[in-house]
């Protein structure tokens, strides 16, 4: 697992750098896009909120206008009622005059009918708290016959009462105020008042007032949902508050609202920023009522939405980065996998397997690369084969050449000995030497096998030593002590002869008293050791050390080195020839070769 992980995040791999750079690129792009779209969204949010609010204000105003228009027509219904008009006319005409009983009854009947009418109108709607008609001389008639007039009310100085008396055609809409007209009731209301006219003269006889509670206006304003980002309030042109969601808090002075800023707003501008940009206000003033619906947006309260947007973009970025990572992994895998495969193949080739072929199955650059690699392998294989063939040939010819080397001096000396012996009439000895020489040559020159039985080699060396003994007489003695069980083992041809020759010429011959040569053989752990021991002059350590060095001037070296190299060529580096010697104590040469039975050695002949 951790190995896989390590493999996955190996820093210097193409794959990792691809994934990382891909992700970095995507991250940067997503980040830039997110920041850009975030700021765009926030601006959009604000302008959306502004346009939404201004739409709401429009709706509110038209709803309120419709409502007030409706109420104004209600007011008209009341003031144009004949009973109401006549009642007011009565009050006016007979003000300060003692009424007759008939007039009293007539006035009472009129009042009854007027109250009934007003009561019906008032009861058509739940938001009408009271309808009252008040004559110029302050005779008050309420729509609710049960309720009593508050005699101490200060209505006579209010706008809603006084203004219709002077402006007989207008319908007045009051700001929020406390209506104290009814005994024991002090309600915050909005009053709609209109002049009552004399049915005959058309003169103003009094004021009719309809008091409205806030239910309808409130429900109009409460229905709008600014979702914690702001609110809407209503004011009239004189900064009197009509509706505010926190009206009690404003009335009690805990909170305040900058009405001045709202009313001072430039109507050509769609909105204004107040309190140093902390708030955005919008105003929509109704032509009917003169009231302004003011929308207050608190951009800071968009923060909740803001953080949601930020989270949205973070999430988006996160998803994009994950997608990028997956895409990067897939792409990089599709690129690096063939490369890895190729690398594996190359590694095998490196270890010597030239039979392998890289197969990516791709048609891209990596495909080209692997095809080139394949043809390279093929060429390399051909080259290797030809090298092996050449090497073999070379070795073969070398062996043959080495086998062919018989010291011409030996031949010359032997012939000289034969001549000398035949001149002395020693015919028997001539026969003996000549037959030994013939035997020697028979084995030497036979091309049949490069490996021969040890027995053949021993016979060969026996012939050689017989010839030499003829030359050196008593100066040379030899003994061959090779056990019969090893004589069947195979050995390269002519490996003993150069060693023995060396022992004769450089060991025994140099010794004034002559010497003896002993040839032995031991078999141990599957290795055959042939030993040639002489008791001649011996060699210095330096001579031993350099015995295999190729030196042209040293006649003794050639044969020995020849044997050493041939053994190595045939059996391998671990086999060969070794010397032990000390000055004056003779020399011991040992040939180490593997014990090979006939037919068991797969040498390429």
């Amino acid at each position, binding site marked *: 697992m951790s190995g896989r992980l390590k493999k996955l995040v190996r820093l210097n791999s193409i794959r990792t750098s691809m994934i990382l750079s891909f992700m970095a690129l995507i991250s940067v792009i997503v980040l830039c896009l997110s920041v850009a779209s975030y700021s765009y969204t926030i601006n959009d949010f604000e302008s959306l909120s502004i346009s939404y609010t201004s739409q709401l204000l429009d709706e509110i105003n038209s709803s309120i206008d419709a409502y007030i228009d409706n109420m104004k027509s209600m007011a008209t219904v009341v003031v144009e009622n004949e009973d109401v008009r006549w009642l007011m006319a009565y009050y006016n005409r007979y003000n300060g005059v003692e009424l007759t009983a008939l007039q009293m009854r007539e006035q009472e009947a009129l009042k009854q009918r007027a109250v009934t009418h007003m009561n019906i109108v008032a009861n058509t709607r739940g938001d009408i708290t009271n309808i009252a008609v008040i004559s110029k001389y302050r005779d008050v008639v309420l729509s609710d016959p049960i309720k009593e007039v*508050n005699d*101490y*009310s*200060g209505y006579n*100085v209010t706008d809603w009462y006084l203004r219709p008396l002077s402006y007989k055609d207008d319908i007045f809409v009051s700001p929020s*105020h*406390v209506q*104290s007209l009814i*005994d*024991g*009731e*002090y309600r*915050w209301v909005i009053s709609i008042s209109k002049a009552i006219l004399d049915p005959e003269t058309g003169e103003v006889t009094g004021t009719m007032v309809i008091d409205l*509670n*806030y*239910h309808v206006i*409130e429900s109009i304003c409460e229905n709008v949902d600014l*979702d*914690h980002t702001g609110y809407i309030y209503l004011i009239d042109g004189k900064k*009197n508050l009509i509706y505010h969601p*926190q*009206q*009690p*808090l404003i*009335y*009690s*002075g*805990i909170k305040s609202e900058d009405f001045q800023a709202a009313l001072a707003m430039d109507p050509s501008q769609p909105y204004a920023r107040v309190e140093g940009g902390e708030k955005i206000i919008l105003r929509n003033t109704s032509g009917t009522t003169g009231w302004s619906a003011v929308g207050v947006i608190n951009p800071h309260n968009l923060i*909740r*939405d803001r*953080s*949601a*947007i930020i*989270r*949205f973009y973070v*999430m*988006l970025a*996160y*998803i994009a980065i*994950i*997608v990028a990572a*997956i*895409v990067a992994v*897939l792409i990089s895998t*599709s690129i690096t996998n063939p490369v890895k495969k190729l690398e594996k193949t190359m590694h095998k080739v490196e270890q010597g397997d030239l039979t392998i072929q890289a197969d990516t199955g791709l048609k891209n650059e990596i495909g080209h690369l692997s095809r080139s690699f394949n043809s390279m392998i093929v060429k390399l294989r051909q080259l290797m084969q030809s090298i092996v063939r050449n090497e073999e040939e070379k070795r073969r010819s070398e062996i043959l050449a080495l086998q062919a080397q018989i010291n011409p001096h030996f031949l010359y000396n032997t012939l000289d000995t034969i001549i000398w012996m035949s001149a002395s009439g020693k015919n028997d000895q001539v026969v003996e030497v000549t037959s030994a020489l013939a035997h020697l040559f028979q084995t030497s020159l036979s091309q049949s096998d490069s490996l021969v039985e040890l027995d053949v080699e021993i016979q060969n060396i026996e012939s050689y030593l017989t010839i030499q003994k003829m030359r050196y007489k008593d100066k040379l003695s030899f003994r061959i002590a090779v056990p019969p069980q090893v004589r069947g083992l195979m050995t390269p041809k002519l490996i003993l002869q150069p060693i023995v020759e060396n022992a004769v010429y450089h060991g025994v011959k140099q010794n004034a008293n002559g010497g003896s040569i002993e040839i032995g053989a031991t078999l141990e752990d599957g290795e055959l050791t042939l030993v040639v021991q002489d008791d001649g002059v011996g060699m210095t350590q330096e001579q031993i050390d350099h015995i295999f060095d190729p030196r042209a001037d040293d006649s003794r070296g050639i044969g020995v080195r020849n044997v050493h190299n041939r053994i190595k060529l045939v059996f391998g580096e671990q086999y060969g020839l070794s010397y032990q010697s000390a000055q004056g104590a003779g020399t011991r040469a040992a040939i180490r070769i593997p014990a090979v039975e006939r037919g068991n050695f797969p040498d390429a002949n």
Partner: protein
Amino acid sequence: MRIKSKGIVLLTAALLSCVLVGYLMLRDIPGVNNPPGEKKQYSIEVVVKSLNNSPVFWGVVEQGIRMGAEEFLVDCNVSGPANENDIDDQIQLVREAIARQPDALILAAGHYSRLAPLCEEAAQAGILVVMLDSDADTDQKICFVGTDNYELGKKLASLVDELILPGERFGVVGHVETTTTAIERSRGLLENVYNADERLADLAYCDGIMETARLQTIEMLAQHPDIRCMVGLNESSALGIANALVELGVAGEVKLVACDNSEQQIHYMETGAIQAFVIQNPFNMGYLSMQAAVNALNGKHVDPVINTGSIIITREDMNRPENQKLLFPFTN
């Protein structure tokens, strides 16, 4: 070719799963596509001195409390005894309120010393205590929100001195002797009115019951016919006095200085039975106590005393728009 198509399938699957995961995660982000829930932040128990009874005062306090609770997203429960002098009832209600384990308790103590142990009990239970209108004898509270009643008493004193001559005497009817509002107001009145020792004819407590106040006034005036001015230390006592004065036919003749502004009192002012009153700001009291409790719960600094103030209203200026806003609670 096979590898390629496998890769495309894998890629598509990965993209789809990412989109799905993203959708699932975004679906729950508030404000993106679901409306914000009106989650209540705290639960606060409010125990006032009287509920469902004549003083409109507590109704307006409750309005302020409700307004604050709505604004600060508080789940609040308002309780109180039927009468201001039902101290045992109030103690029981406070016990019940504590048992509901609210985050905070807003308490108007009906009794200065008897409610104190309960405040300590609440504080020990980890409930923040905010005293409203009437304090209790404890330091286990966050703050006191209410009128500076000594100052209110001082205003009453100035009105008495304005309405009658320095040699004329006055009588006082208070509500509950043991409650701080009565204690402080009478102290403020008597310490500041001119020559209180000689001019104070009598001082009675009606236990918050209007009828008692009426009877006490009648008796007081019978015993001290030289009384030229009466002072009612709260709404019920003032109304009792006003009723007595009207009954005796001396309304306007014997002046009346009152506290608080029920509609009845306003009517008496219109008729001339009450010459002036000092009004408190019960709405602000309720609202600000809720605000203080929430601020304390949020770990913000809260002043130990929040004075909601008092204002003198006389018959002459009662119709001014700014006074109307204070006199008449804005009930829709």
